[in-house]
């Protein structure tokens, strides 16, 4: 299966900033000229990476820039088509996961590589089981979890099933797994995507401790504030190529973003007080609330499907022109709340009004026609049919508006597609391509074009920028701001607190199925909201 790679063609990394770092540390890992194609898609073209021993190295780049592929090559999950990987000066190109593990290279994947039906201890030892005779030595496995937990501060009960763990705990198990296998080089693929701010702090603590003990960390992330906070060195990738490497102390978020995208970007953290996307006068909130709410949710209770309630009595109203943000750690009922409003999930009690109209028991199509747009949180599961052409994806759920005498009107569909592809800058701009051929950011643009490229008084935007690159985030944020400026009501749910704070006029924190606090933007900050998100503050607070 592994194409035997030729020895590295020493192509120098392109990019003006390529040689800004003169490393004094001995280089632990060097990858040069790495190329890897999947079918006709070249994930890595000329990727390189140099990691010094004992540092925390951030690898950043847009979605689809090839970061994960490069990391998977380093961890032995893929063999490169070309190029060279060296660990400690030894050529390890195209090695297996087993060899990588034995050499002390361990990867914590973005999507956890844990078996949910096994216990923490079983997950830890899988593949390298301690034995007593021919048997699996459970006591030893359990003891390993405890010893390692004490040593590193990553404490998890060894006999719990992984399916019962919180995301933060599951990630601890992932890191433990890697450390237990003697990793000296830890690769973490977007480790903070699912963590609450306090959990992120804990993780940083662990990583600093590990590097202090001599380990080395490579961290993939989208979040530039994290890069600035935790890393020593940054490598930037774009379109499968390494475009630069820079010491973090010499870098700025704006500079890194520019390298990632290849042009100037406005970052989410910059509130567009001066931005060109519409009036941002301090929302005269009271007066707006007086006017009729565009979306009015009262005492909503939604069952979780696991025997209890996921949403336990949530009420709020969003006036036209407001972005109402819901922050919170995932799994606290946000998804169920949005799905109930969107019509994907049945409501146990409570009402939902769209303007004056009660839509609580309407079907999906009727809700859509009533003016409800929905950007679902998982574009692959709910947002797109990956095998369908872009043009067809652009009318999903609205296909009844594109028929003539009961038959799909291809002309109208093509015209619609042409407009939307141009209007939302979907690339490549060929509506006949299947959605699967697009990058994550462009797939998301297809969903957004479908939901926002029409009349809609109310928009439900659920994780609208999950897994998309900086450029697309900028674009999507601008669209959401413009929608609000044009008088649409927006319900924004995001696990990314930065995003909520960047867009929302009011912020609610959802914990355990309830709003534990609702604050105007001016009073909300990560520091204020953090304790609410983990349930430390506001417990017992009720929603009216």
């Amino acid at each position, binding site marked *: 299966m592994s194409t035997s790679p030729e020895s590295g063609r020493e192509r120098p990394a392109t990019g003006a900033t390529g040689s800004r770092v003169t490393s004094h540390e001995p280089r632990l890992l060097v990858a040069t000229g790495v190329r890897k194609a999947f079918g006709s898609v070249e994930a890595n073209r000329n990727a390189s990476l140099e990691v010094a021993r004992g540092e925390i190295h951030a690898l950043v780049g847009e979605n689809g820039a090839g970061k994960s592929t490069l990391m998977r090559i380093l961890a032995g999950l893929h063999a490169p088509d070309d190029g060279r990987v060296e660990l400690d000066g030894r050529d390890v190109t195209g090695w297996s996961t087993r060899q990588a593990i034995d050499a002390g290279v361990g990867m914590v994947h973005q999507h956890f*590589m844990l078996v*949910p039906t096994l216990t923490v201890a079983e997950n830890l030892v899988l*593949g*390298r*089981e301690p034995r007593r005779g021919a048997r*699996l030595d459970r006591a030893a496995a359990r003891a390993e979890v405890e010893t390692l937990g004490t040593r590193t501060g990553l404490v998890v009960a060894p006999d719990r099933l992984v399916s019962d763990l919180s995301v933060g705990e599951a990630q601890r198990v992932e890191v433990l797994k890697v450390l237990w296998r003697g990793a000296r080089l830890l690769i973490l693929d977007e480790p903070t995507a699912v963590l609450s701010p306090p959990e992120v702090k804990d993780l940083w603590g662990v990583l600093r401790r590990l590097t202090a003990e001599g380990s080395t960390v490579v961290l993939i992330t989208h979040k530039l504030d994290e890069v600035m906070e935790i890393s020593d060195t940054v490598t930037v990738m774009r379109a499968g190529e390494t475009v630069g490497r820079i010491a973090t102390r010499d870098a700025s978020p704006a500079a890194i973003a520019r390298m990632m995208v290849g042009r100037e970007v406005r970052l989410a953290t910059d509130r567009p007080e001066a931005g060109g996307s519409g009036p941002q006068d301090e929302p005269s909130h009271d007066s707006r609330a007086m006017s009729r709410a565009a979306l009015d949710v009262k005492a909503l209770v939604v069952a979780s499907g696991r025997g209890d309630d996921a949403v336990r009595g949530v009420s709020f109203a969003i006036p036209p022109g407001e972005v109402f943000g819901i922050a919170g750690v995932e799994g606290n009922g946000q998804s169920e709340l949005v799905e109930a409003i969107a019509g994907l999930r049945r409501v146990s009690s409570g009402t939902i009004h769209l303007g004056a109209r009660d839509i609580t028991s309407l079907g999906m199509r009727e809700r859509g026609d009533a003016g409800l747009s929905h950007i679902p949180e998982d574009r692959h599961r709910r947002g797109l049919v990956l095998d369908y052409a872009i043009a067809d994806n652009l009318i999903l759920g609205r296909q009844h508006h594109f028929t003539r005498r009961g038959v799909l009107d291809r002309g109208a569909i093509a015209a619609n597609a042409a407009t939307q592809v141009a209007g939302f800058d979907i690339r490549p701009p060929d509506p006949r391509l299947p959605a699967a051929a697009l990058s994550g950011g462009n797939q998301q643009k297809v969903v957004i074009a479908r939901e926002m490229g029409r009349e809609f008084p109310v928009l439900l935007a659920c994780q609208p920028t999950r897994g998309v690159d900086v450029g697309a985030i900028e674009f999507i944020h601008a669209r959401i701001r413009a929608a609000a400026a044009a008088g649409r009501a927006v319900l924004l749910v995001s696990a990314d607190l930065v995003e909520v704070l960047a867009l929302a006029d009011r912020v609610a924190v959802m914990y355990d199925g309830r709003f534990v606090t609702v604050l105007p933007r001016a009073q909300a900050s990560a520091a204020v909201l953090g304790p609410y998100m983990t349930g430390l503050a506001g417990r017992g607070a009720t929603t009216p």
Partner: protein
Amino acid sequence: MIILAFIVQTLRIATPYLLAASGGLLSERAGIIALTLEGWMLTSAFCAALGAHYAQSPWVGLLCGVAGGIVAAALHAVASIRYRANQVVVGIAINLLAIGTTRFFLRLAFDSSSNSPRVPGFDWFTSSGAGAGGVLDTLASLLNPLVVAGLLALPVVGWLLANLPLGLRIRAVGEKPEAAESLGVDPARVRWVAVLAAGALTSLGGVYLALDQHQFTDNMTAGRGFIALAAVIFGNWRPARVAIACVLFAAAETLQIQLQGLQLVPSQFVEMIPYLLTIVALAGIVGRAVPPAALGKPTA
């Protein structure tokens, strides 16, 4: 006496279920759909009759049957693991193939379209089996290595899954093969081992059928592989519950046989029981059955 006879008959009817279900459990826990139990059993029943006939020895029949079952399992493994084919389609194909090939070779080897000649079985202590009356005779009919194997199969598979490193790997591969792979465990290899072992275990069920009836008859498994699969599902993929399900299905069948004269319920309704219970289990009417998460999904 009636109760003893009932228990003994239940165990004998349960034997092929227990053996096939233990194979099915092993295969499914590794993520390979065990829709082929029927085909594996039929193949091994034929091979067993063939071997026992030519060597005039049940032991040779046993060996041949197991070999046949393993070959059939390997066919399944090649298609669904090596070539990542749709396991349901492969399963149906192998079942149909088994019916056809056994029929073909039945004609070729024994020049018959219905059954093989009489072959020796494992009935060492019974005078002649059918019609014999005494308590000892009834009990002696259980002194059959395959009946014993049937009683041990699920406990052994259960123990293996829980206590061997290989068992841990099988469970991991059936739930999340990519996790196993990221730790240097080769999911394809684990599945191969599991499927071949499943073929061997299941084939014992087929061997039992042929040797117990002292002949191979066309399509003699008559859906027993599906009943075993139903037991795996109804047992929620847990060894103890699967064993209970097998015995339960066998008891229902025994009851139906013993009450045949009375015509209380048409026998067809009794035959429906396993399938109805399977639907009940899958529909979650009494606690939902949760299959291994990666069941039927090819590994990368």
